[in-house]
């Protein structure tokens, strides 16, 4: 039997108030009463005016929402069982998400199609507080990796449902989306291609180089040293540094221009992202192989395994969870860094961010930022789950039939 690491998680009912619940309640209440729930702008670039929750929707709805949120806070204060806590948080966030959409419909003036309604700081603060409490509940529940991925899929579906049902249609981000919907998906594809493409290239090259570094100490010092230096170059500088050499290659190497190699655009972006990805992949490959104990390695040799058999049957499988951790670091890092790549014309969601900054249109910046944050978040959860599966749950009982 696998020994379960799950401690008995018994809820304790009592008068003692939950400390985390107190913090969450304080944040929620301040968001509810002190911060505007929605923002109103007469047009996309006008100054925003905050609207408190009781003015952002019909009064009876506002009172019911406030009552519900206060009730949720009280429940969290009493430290209920983890499952109930999870449910309360999910319900509160769903309520907030739906109501912020409703307030869009309520506040949109009929005579001004250029007016913009967006979620205010009160909304964001409350969502943050409940998300924080939910993350805590998820950790305490010690969900299995597959269940965590399942939860992520359910969350993504729920957001997709709100998105397509039109519940948020009157909100400013969605209006920006309507104006840029073709570009949104195009830049999304570019973003994913840059982030995942550079990761795939770095993995395919980094793992063999890591194995080489592990076997040959001299190579290890040289390669890890130079990659460490590379890692210290700020990303924007690295994008800039690559412009000149790649422009030269594009002009002078026959066929390079036809492949899209030029000083700006896709080529320097993917090269720079690849360079950043290489160090974590290589160093984690080396660290993973290093972590295989001497006894295990000696036993493999003593059993009569050849060098290749030792690598594929013993060293690599044991190093794999650590290598996967490196890949997780790279993927999350790349999804963020790709935003910068838009500066040299490589596309991606950064395009909206920088356009939004120059036009002083916050909503457009958000249109670029939200998908990046969601992608990074999803990637982190999925890869964390994979790391856990490969490390501990990978070999279950009955693994005997795996040849």
């Amino acid at each position, binding site marked *: 039997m696998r020994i379960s690491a799950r401690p008995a998680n018994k809820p304790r009912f009592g008068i003692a108030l939950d400390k985390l619940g107190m913090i969450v309640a304080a944040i929620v209440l301040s968001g509810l009463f002190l911060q505007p729930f929605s923002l109103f702008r007469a047009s996309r670039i006008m100054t925003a005016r905050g609207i408190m929750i009781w003015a952002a929707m019909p009064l009876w709805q506002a009172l019911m929402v406030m009552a519900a949120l206060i009730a949720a806070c009280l429940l969290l204060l009493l430290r209920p069982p983890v499952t109930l806590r999870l449910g309360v948080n999910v319900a509160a966030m769903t309520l907030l998400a739906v109501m912020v959409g409703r307030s869009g419909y309520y506040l949109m003036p009929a005579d001004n199609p250029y007016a913009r309604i967006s979620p205010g700081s009160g909304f964001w603060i409350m969502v943050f507080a409940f998300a924080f409490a939910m993350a805590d509940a998820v950790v305490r529940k010690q969900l299995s990796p597959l269940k965590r991925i399942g939860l992520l899929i359910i969350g993504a579906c729920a957001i997709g449902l709100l998105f397509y049902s039109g519940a948020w249609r009157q909100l400013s981000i969605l209006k920006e989306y309507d104006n840029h919907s073709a570009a949104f998906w195009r830049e999304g594809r570019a973003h994913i291609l840059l982030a995942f493409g550079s990761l795939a290239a770095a993995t395919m090259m980094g793992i063999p180089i890591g194995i080489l570094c592990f076997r040959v100490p001299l190579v290890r010092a040289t390669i890890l040293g130079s990659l460490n230096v590379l890692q210290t170059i700020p990303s924007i500088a690295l994008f800039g540094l690559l412009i000149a050499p790649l422009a030269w290659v594009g002009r002078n190497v026959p066929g390079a221009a036809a492949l899209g190699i030029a000083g700006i655009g896709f080529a320097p972006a993917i090269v720079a992202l690849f360079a950043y990805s290489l160090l974590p992949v290589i160093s984690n490959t080396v660290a993973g192989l290093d972590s295989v104990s001497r006894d*295990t390695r000696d036993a493999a040799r003593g059993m009569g395994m050849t060098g290749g058999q030792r690598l594929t049957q013993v060293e690599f499988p044991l190093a794999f969870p650590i290598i996967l951790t490196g890949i997780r670091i790279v993927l999350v890092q790349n999804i963020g860094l790709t935003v910068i790549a838009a500066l040299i014309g490589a596309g991606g969601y950064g395009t909206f961010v920088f356009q939004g900054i120059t036009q002083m249109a916050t909503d457009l910046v958000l249109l670029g930022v939200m998908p990046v944050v969601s992608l990074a978040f999803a990637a982190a959860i999925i890869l964390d789950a994979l790391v856990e599966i490969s490390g501990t749950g990978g070999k279950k009982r009955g693994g005997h039939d795996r040849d």
Partner: protein
Amino acid sequence: MIEIDAVTRLYGHRVKAVDNVSLTVENGRLVVIVGASGSGKTTLMRMINRLVEPSSGTIRIDGCDNRELPGPELRRRIGYVIQEHGLFPHRTAAENIATVPKLLGWNRKRRDARVDELLSLFHLEPSRFRDRMPHELSGGEQQRIGVARALAAKPAFLLMDEPFGALDPSIRGRAREDLLEIQRRLSTTVVLVTHDMDEAIVLGHKIAVMREGRLLQYAPPAEIIANPAADFVDELLGGDDKAFRMLSLDTVDRLVENGPAHGSPVSCNASLKDVLAEALWSGRDTLPVEKDGAIIGRVSRDCLIRHAARPAS
């Protein structure tokens, strides 16, 4: 037969880890190499399956130079048990045991049958232990799986590097007895390395004592106790209780004489040491000896004491 012929292993240019050692291990025997850490005992053993290559000298296994086969192929024919067991942590007990058979290309059915056979041989219920991961096993179970893995492809030779070092003292004795029984049953030729002279005396048909790379003495335990070839060997023996060590080597059935005796009988398989202790404790001059439930004679205290004396050399 393993013939080690004038083997030297240098580290760097001057340090001789093993210095011109020659010894022969006859088939079916259990030879223990004993010495302090740094004495070269492990290096000597590792040269037999070429985990370490000798700087000079040759090692012949059943008459053939061990360099005739490529290293990995040679090692698949020689069982290998290491300190701390060294089980593969990502493989089940069964997969660990089947390592060498799989490398040799045995088919699945044959491997599975062999795994079950070995688990039973080591008193581990196959259906319970087959699919366990190493971290789910106790120290003693891991050690047994380690030995089972080494024996999986039915090697004629077995090398063991401090195989009981990681075990609790309380189960070490049992593990040694199991090894002796299996060695007798399979008549495998075993070379075992240890730093523990007691272990060497309990297990070895012959003991090789090493110090600073040199072989000081290579002889049966009785000879080592009676005539230590050097002060160092004497030191390893611990000086004080040689008489009892001597007695612990023999069983009482050799000293049985005819005649009556009183009191509870002792088994003919008991060691002389245990029988003498019983004679002293119960204050009897003679003790009856039984075999398979029947009294076959008696043994006298004087006779036992005579056997504790240093043999004339």
